[in-house]
Structures are given as C-alpha cells and as structure tokens.
C-alpha cells in the first residue's frame, strides 16, 4: 500500500534516477554555459540550458525538494529573460549561473546522503539570480547585509569540496547503456542457455567425469550470467505506477471524492520496454477508475460503503504471463447506460441493443469515441482513450478484459505475455511428445497407480486428500497418439490456472529446466493451449503449454465460490453454469445434484455396512458415516426396513454430503458423469426435487438436497414423537 507523497524504498529508485540525470544535466550545463559565454548569440545552446534547468525544476517539484526547486526556478526565470532577449549574458550572469550549478550539485549530494534537500534556503543565491534578472531588490525578502560580499563563496566552497570527493557515489556505480545493447546481450544469453542445455544433454549421455565437471561449471556460469543480464533489463512494475497515488489524489481532490490507491505486487518485474509501453494505458485506467468508477462520498455512504473509495492496482505472475489488475470498489459499469449510448452513438437499433450480450456491451467501451459519462470532466469522459489503451496493450502482445458488477466495482485485467523471457518449466512426456509446463502453474506432482483415477466417463476425477480434483488427460486433450488412458505408472501434474485447479495426466516427467520462450508464428496464434515454443536440450523444438488455455479448452470448472461476476467468463458457457454430478438412483432414474454439495464420492462394500435399528452406517476414517438410500428419502411412502442385501449391489455408491461437522452418505445407483450446464429448471416433479431439465439429451431430475435433508429431519422428529407416544 502506498501513501501519497513518498515512501522510502518505493521512491528511492525514482530519486536515484533523478540524481543520475541531474548530475549529467549539470555537467552539460557547465559546458553549455562556457560555450554561451564564448558565443552569447548561440540560441540553441541557450535553449539547451533553459531546458536543463526547467527539467530539474519540474522533477524536484514533483519529488518535493522545495529548496532545490526554488533555486532552479529562480535560475529558470533568469534564463527565460536571456532567451526572450530582454537581457543578455554577461560574465557576471554566467558566473552566477555556474555557481548555481555548483549549489545544485551540493544539494543533490545532500539528497543522496540524507534524502532531503537540507535546511539551507540559499537565500543569497536566489537573491542574486533575481537581481540579475532585473527585479527590484524589494521584490524578494530582504537579503542579509553581507549578501553582496558573499556572492562568490558558494562557488569557492564547492570547488574545494569537489576536489575532495571528486564524484558522487550514485554516478560512480551506474553506467547508462543503450537498450539495444542490452537486447543484443539478452539474445546472446538466450542462445547460450540453449547451447548449455544441449551440452548438459550430451554430457549426461557420456560417462566422462571431466566433461561432466566442465559442463557443470558452464552450467553455473550460464545461470549466473543469464540472471545478471535479465536483471539489467528488468524493472519492478512499481516504476510504472509510482506516480499513481499522487495523480489519483489530485484527481480525487478536483472531483471532491475520497480515493485511496492500494498497490500490491509492485516488485513484480517486467522487461523495461514492456513497462514503458503499459505506463500510459495503466495511468488512463486508474484515472478512469477515480473519475467514473468511484462514486461521490455521499453516494458511497448511501450505498453502505466506506466513503473512501479504493482502487487496487496489483500485479502478479500467472500462467507464464504477468497479469495487472486495476480494480475499483465503485459503482460498476452501468450496462443499461451503455446500451442507451450504443443506440445513440453506434447506429444500433434499440432492439439490437436489447439483444446485445453483456460482453458485447462492455466491448463497446473500447470503441473510439464511446463514453457513457453524462458530462465531460476535465480529466476524462471525452470518449478518447480506452480504444488507445487496448491498442497499446495489444501492440505488445497483451490483452485487456473488463469485468464489472453493478454496485460493486469494475476490474480491468491486463495480461502481458513474457515473450522475451527465460522461465523455469517442467518438461512432461505424453507418448512421444515432450511438452514444457511453466512452473508458475505447478502445484505438485502425484504418481498415480492403475485405478486411482476414477473414470466417470468424460469427467475423470482424482481424490487428492480431501478434494475431488478434475483430471485432464494431456494425450486426450491434445489428440496425441500413444497416451493410453489408464495405463500403469503415470503421473498427475497438479496445476492451477488462475483460481482453478486440475490434474494433468501425463506419461512421464523430465527434470525441471529453464527455457527461452519464443512466440509462436502467426499460423499458430489461434492455438490457445500453447504459450509459445522453445528449443529443448536435445535441439528439438518443444511446445510450452498455456495452462489457462488448456483449462479453458478442457472445460475445467471454476471453483464455485462467490466471485465477482466475470463478464469474460460468461461468454462461452452461457450464464450461471453449474457443475452437476449426474447419477442414477438405485432404481435407475437419472438424477443430478450440484457438485458443490457433494464432498466426496465413495464406494463401500455391502458387508461394511453396520446397522443399528433403522439406521445404517459405515466407518469412515475415524468417524461414522450414516447412510441413507436416496430412494428412501425421496419416496413419500415410508418404507419398512428392508432385509439386508435386498436389491442392493455388492458395492454401495455413496455421495458424501457435509453440513458443518455432520456427514451424510447418500446411497445412489451409480455415478454417471460430471457436467457443466446452466440450470434451467422446469417444474418440480415431486418433493425433494427442485425441478427437471435436459442433461446430455435426457430428462434428469435435479435433487433438492437441502430440502430433502430438511424433510428427513422433520420425519425423524415425527418418528421420535410417534414412538414416544406409542411408548406412553
């Protein structure tokens, strides 16, 4: 989280950059002044001097170095006079300007040492600069009597001190390098990494200890070199958003709003060129969030929110990409307003507008000239911008999505690929294919024996500790030959794609390694399942899996939690899709139950069932799991207890439902499948069923499990009171 002005650490880099630049500018200033003295008519030299002073003034104003700013301002005013021709340069002017440069250096050094621009107001110098400009002495606060006598000392004093310390520490430890040189180095290191990988592979084939040791040393050096060169190009993303808190604050003040910027993940590093490219788009989105997103304090309070709005800017690595989110807790996008504007601005008929999906409507925000703002404010609302934002992000191979929930806020999500990056991967095998999986997506590796993947037709699952993990077969999903579905000794690579987790079934695992990501050519851009390609240690090209893309393709379900509505996510599966567990009851009728109500799927041998009175139960870990045949629950006519074994299969298929600490096992016929579908229920057929719908082409009853359990409770109480009455 950042506060307005500056926090040490966050701003240190900006200050350091300012110092380096200013030292350089002052050196140039000296040269320019000397040249100007030789040729007082050199207008370009004068212009250069003016620019230098102007830049220093502007930057130190921004950084809050008021004393420095004041001197620079006085010097700039003097230079403006020279530039306008209202005064001309004299040796005296040049001398004072040179002295100014020295004083500025002194202050810079002080900033470097202490972080502040000191206590000295340098009144004398400012006075001198003003006087040279021709201002009457009274225009400035009265100078100390000795002012004139002390006109020279700053210069002299600096001169001696300069001899002692020669050069600033900041300048001594930094060198400016052309970015193209860094690019070249990066390319070379990429090639070196590939050659190293090749060498490692060759050496592992040969039992030659001296080759192995030489290879190892090349390996280490390459790794360190690579890290070093990468670092030269990387900058933490906070350099892009360092100014946001200040900008947002000023904007909020201008709009009479209260807004706080929070940032997270500022240390996420990105290539310098990418940071440059996203700076402006990000700034635009943040301004929009403050201007359009966050409501006025009264409206926020009326809506039950804190009067201070929050704009959260965060960055993180996800799936081999960097994701940057700008989320506000404001009013959200008013889709009805967008619809109305669409009719007004984009030659859409009202009927068409009504039919437009949320996604299509939100897309309109990225059209040039489209704005829903009622009025044009000073800062935004002119409808210029979001189209440029999208263009700029797409230019560097990124994408931008919006999700919004009315009354709860809007989130912009920018994804930037790491095309020029070396990433750690795990290479897996499926049949003959070798595919690299970014380790950023990797959670764990599990060896799976035969039978431990439960084949529920199209929706295989694996029981990972207490959770059901959807399983995706790499071979099946990519249509690879050779990968046999349930062969022995395979591995489950547990991956996360954003909030989703799933297990990827593969045939083999290789050692983790580092690879250079290369983008795929334009022929393959449509392939969402691959993030790029790389050259593997054996010299062959290997594909890099896009875990998010694969999860989308395989239809891996979102964890069903209360998430803000994701407009993007709603496009593919229509709306409000639910994961449904499809099963047959013991009489063979097709039923389904929302998957989130089922904790686990279990199978118990009939012999394991213990009976006490009317109740049946099994031992489940160290607990007792009461079993209830679903048929009994659903049947309105209460059944007499059956003799053991009657119409019961040898193994009981049980859906385990957990409510708080209570467990209940529902005995069903067999589990058929897990499907993802929108719930479109038609009338309930009987108690305990919330409705029917078509699932996989057949009429299926959707179980109302909470209702059913309530019915069961009521019945048990009735039973108890009935037996109590019978006993009395």
């Amino acid at each position: 989280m950042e506060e307005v002005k500056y926090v040490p650490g966050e701003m240190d880099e900006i200050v350091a950059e300012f110092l380096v630049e200013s030292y350089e500018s002052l050196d140039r200033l000296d040269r320019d002044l000397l040249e100007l003295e030789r040729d007082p008519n050199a207008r370009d030299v004068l212009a250069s001097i003016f620019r230098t002073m102007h830049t220093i003034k502007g930057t130190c104003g921004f950084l809050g170095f008021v004393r420095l700013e004041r001197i620079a301002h006085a010097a700039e005013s003097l230079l403006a006079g020279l530039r306008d021709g209202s005064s001309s340069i004299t040796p005296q002017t040049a001398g004072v300007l040179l002295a100014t440069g020295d004083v500025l250096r002194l202050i810079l050094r002080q900033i470097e040492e202490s972080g502040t621009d000191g206590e000295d107001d340098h009144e004398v110098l400012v006075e001198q600069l003003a006087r040279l400009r021709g201002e009457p002495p009274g225009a400035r606060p009265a100078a100390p009597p000795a002012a004139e006598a002390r006109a020279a000392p700053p210069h002299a004093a600096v001169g001696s001190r300069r001899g002692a310390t020669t050069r600033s520490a900041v300048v001594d430890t930094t060198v400016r390098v052309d970015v193209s040189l860094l690019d070249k180095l990066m390319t070379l290191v990429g090639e070196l990494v590939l050659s190293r990988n090749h060498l490692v592979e060759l050496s592992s084939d040969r039992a030659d200890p001296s080759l192995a040791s030489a290879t190892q040393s090349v390996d280490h050096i390459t790794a360190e070199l690579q890290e070093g060169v990468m670092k030269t190009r990387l900058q933490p993303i906070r350099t892009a958003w360092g100014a946001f808190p200040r900008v947002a604050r000023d904007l909020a003040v201008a709009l009479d709003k209260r807004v706080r910027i929070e940032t997270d993940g500022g240390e996420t590093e990105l290539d310098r060129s990418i940071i440059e490219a996203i700076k402006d788009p990000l700034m635009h989105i943040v301004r929009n969030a403050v201007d359009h997103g966050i409501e006025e304090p009264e409206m926020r309070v009326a809506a039950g929110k804190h009067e201070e709005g929050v704009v959260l800017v965060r960055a993180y690595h996800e799936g081999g990409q960097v994701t940057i989110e700008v989320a506000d807790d404001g009013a959200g996008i008013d889709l009805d307003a967008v619809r109305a504007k669409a009719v007004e601005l984009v030659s859409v008929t009202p009927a068409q507008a009504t039919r437009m999906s949320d996604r299509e409507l939100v897309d309109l925000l990225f059209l040039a000239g489209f704005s829903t703002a009622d009025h044009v404010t000073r800062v935004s609302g002119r409808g210029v911008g979001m189209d440029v934002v999208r263009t700029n992000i797409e230019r560097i191979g990124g994408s931008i999505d919006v999700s919004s929930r009315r009354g709860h806020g809007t989130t912009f999500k920018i994804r930037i690929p790491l095309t020029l990056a070396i990433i750690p991967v795990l290479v897996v095998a499926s049949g003959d294919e070798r595919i690299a999986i970014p380790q950023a997506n990797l959670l764990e590796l599990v060896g799976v024996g035969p039978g431990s993947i439960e084949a529920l037709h199209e929706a295989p699952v694996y029981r990972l500790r207490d959770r059901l993990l959807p399983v995706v077969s790499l071979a099946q999903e990519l249509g690879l030959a050779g990968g046999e579905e349930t062969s022995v000794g395979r591995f489950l690579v547990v991956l996360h794609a954003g909030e989703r987790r799933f297990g990827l079934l593969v045939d083999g695992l290789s050692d983790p390694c580092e690879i250079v990501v290369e983008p795929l050519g334009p022929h393959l851009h449509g392939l969402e399942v691959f993030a790029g390609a790389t050259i593997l240690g054996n010299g062959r090209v290997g594909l890099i899996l896009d875990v998010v893309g694969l999860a989308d393709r395989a239809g891996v379900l979102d964890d069903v939690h209360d998430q803000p509505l994701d407009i993007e996510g709603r496009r593919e599966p229509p709306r409000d899709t639910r994961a449904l567990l499809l099963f047959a009851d013991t009489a063979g009728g097709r039923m389904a139950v929302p998957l989130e109500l089922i904790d686990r799927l279990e199978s118990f041998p009939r012999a394991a069932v213990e009976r006490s009175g009317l109740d049946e139960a099994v031992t489940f870990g160290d607990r007792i799991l009461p079993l209830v045949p679903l048929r009994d629950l659903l049947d309105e006519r209460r059944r007499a207890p059956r003799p053991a074994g009657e119409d019961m299969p040898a193994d009981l298929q049980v859906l385990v439902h957990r409510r708080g600490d209570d467990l209940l096992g529902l005995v069903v016929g067999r589990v058929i499948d897990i499907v993802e579908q929108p719930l479109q229920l038609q009338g309930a057929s009987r108690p305990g069923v919330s409705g029917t719908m078509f699932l996989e082409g057949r009429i299926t009853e959707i179980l109302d499990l909470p209702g059913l359990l309530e019915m069961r409770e009521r019945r048990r109480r009735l039973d108890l009171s009935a037996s109590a009455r019978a006993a009395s």
Partner: protein
Amino acid sequence: MKRLATFTVDGRFLGIDVTRVREVLRPQALTRVPLAPPQIAGLVNLRGEIVTALDLRVALGWRQRHPGERPMNVVVTTEHGHVSMLVDAVSDVLEIDEGAFERTPSTLGGSAGDLIRGAYKLDGRLLLELDLDAAIGTTSPFGIDAEVDDR
C-alpha cells in the same frame, strides 16, 4: 527475365521468386503441433530460430507424403518472419521468360487453384508459380485469418 527457385511437390514442378528464398535445408527434425491446422507440419529449429513448417502437399490439397519420405525445407522470408515450406525435392534456379506465363490452368483443382498464380510453359513441361503469400497463409483461407480447427 525472372529468376525462380524451383522444386517438386507431388510430381508437379513449382517455382517461387528466388529473392524470397532464404535457404534450402535437408530434412529437419519436426516437432508436431497438436491441434494446429493440417497444413502446419510442425516447428523446426533453424539454428536457434523456431520456424513454422508448412507442408505444401497439404496446403495445395495434393496427395499426402508417404511416412518414410522426408521432405526438404525451403525457408522463405515473410513479413511475419521465416517460414519453412516442405517440398519433395529441390531443383535449380531458372531464368524464365515472363512472356511464357499463363494464368492458372483450370485443370488444377482444389486449393491449388487459389495458391498458384499461373504457369510458365517450359520445354516439355509446365512450371507452376506459387503465390507465396497466399500459400504461406497471409491471404489464403488457410492462413492467419483462418479459424483454427478447434476440437
């Protein structure tokens, strides 16, 4: 006069502007790309550069190569970088009289009709000039704008 680099694909004699050819390579190890459009044969490591290989037999809609036959790579320069075209055999660079050019013969069926600009009548045989940009997919229905076969 025009200089064409020539090669054969499924018994036909084809040529492209020689200035577009970067190099010709012997059969290379190909990494197949699952789910890619059929004419994409895979990816090739071209001295550290990853290059998409396009099978001209598939792109032109001609007979598939036998599994044992290993194709030559004609690496061409496009505005999207290099692309390797897989051909059966590579022949000479020929100087062609442009007067001998005729528009695409109607006898060419299928995709070939769209991807071949026309033919030069040489002694005893026809040299078909490939529309390189169409063939590598910058403008053809197979290419960059094409829907990738999904599932």
